[in-house]
């Protein structure tokens, strides 16, 4: 694991909610990827079954914040301002992954997009577009 991925893992481990959800950090040639292993508690619809929309939102938001911290070397966690989540496919009872990219870095705010997928990155289950406020 690279130093960047280790630093991210340490950051996420310091956040009780991320630790509790079981979010892990991976890295590939394109950058950081967050992994959320499947767990029964993540289910929102027991009939399908499908992941809860809040779980999907939480992983996407965490990926967005982690990417900003990683790329901009933030000392403090940025504050979320707004987040818009599009639910594209139902999240199945499988491991999920998320990757984020910064679209525009302003002096105070950052526009960030994130995508979440399960078995195939070209078939995303949800995407996020949001703004975060940098703290200094």
């Amino acid at each position, binding site marked *: 694991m690279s130093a960047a991925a280790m630093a991210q893992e340490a950051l996420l481990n310091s956040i*009780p*909610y991320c630790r509790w959800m079981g979010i892990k950090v991976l890295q590939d040639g394109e950058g950081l990827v967050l992994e959320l292993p499947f767990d029964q508690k993540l289910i929102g619809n027991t009939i399908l079954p499908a992941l*809860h929309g809040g779980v999907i939102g939480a992983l996407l938001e965490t990926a967005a914040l982690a990417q900003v911290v990683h790329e901009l070397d933030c000392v403090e*966690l940025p504050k979320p301002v*707004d*987040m*818009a989540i599009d639910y594209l496919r139902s999240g199945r009872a499988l491991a999920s992954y998320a990757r984020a990219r910064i679209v525009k870095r302003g002096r105070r705010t950052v526009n960030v997009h994130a995508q979440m997928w399960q078995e195939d990155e070209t078939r995303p289950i949800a995407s996020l577009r949001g703004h975060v406020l940098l703290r200094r």
Partner: protein
Amino acid sequence: MMQNPDWQDQARRMVGVTPWFAAIGGEVVMARAGRAMARISWREDLIGDPQTGVIHGGVITSLLDQLCGAAVMSALNQPLPIATLDLRIDYLKPAAKGMAIVGEAECLKVTHEIAFVRGSAHNEADQEVIALCTAAFMLTRPEGRAT
């Protein structure tokens, strides 16, 4: 159209208890005629910022998604599968450390395919609004029957 009272109770049970919402300690307090209320207690393992003790945005997302779904269910005259199409959240201020969060949502319109919802979340103790949301849900009606 008259709402079936049994269905109202069924709607509350269906949308009030999902494994994830129960795991984060959430509870749908009320869901009736297109309006819903839910509550979530502050808990150590829901913290998103260890320095301030502020709850993770994902918890607010879960509360609002569950709540908006409950509002949609309670606006329908019969049980239908629903799925979140999109959810937009404005984080007005961080949730206060140690305080329960209460959310309210209202389903403003139900069409054949889509339901539109608005919601908000506030600190239970001081009533300060912490988040606003707008959501759309897909409805899956039985085929070939206009209801």
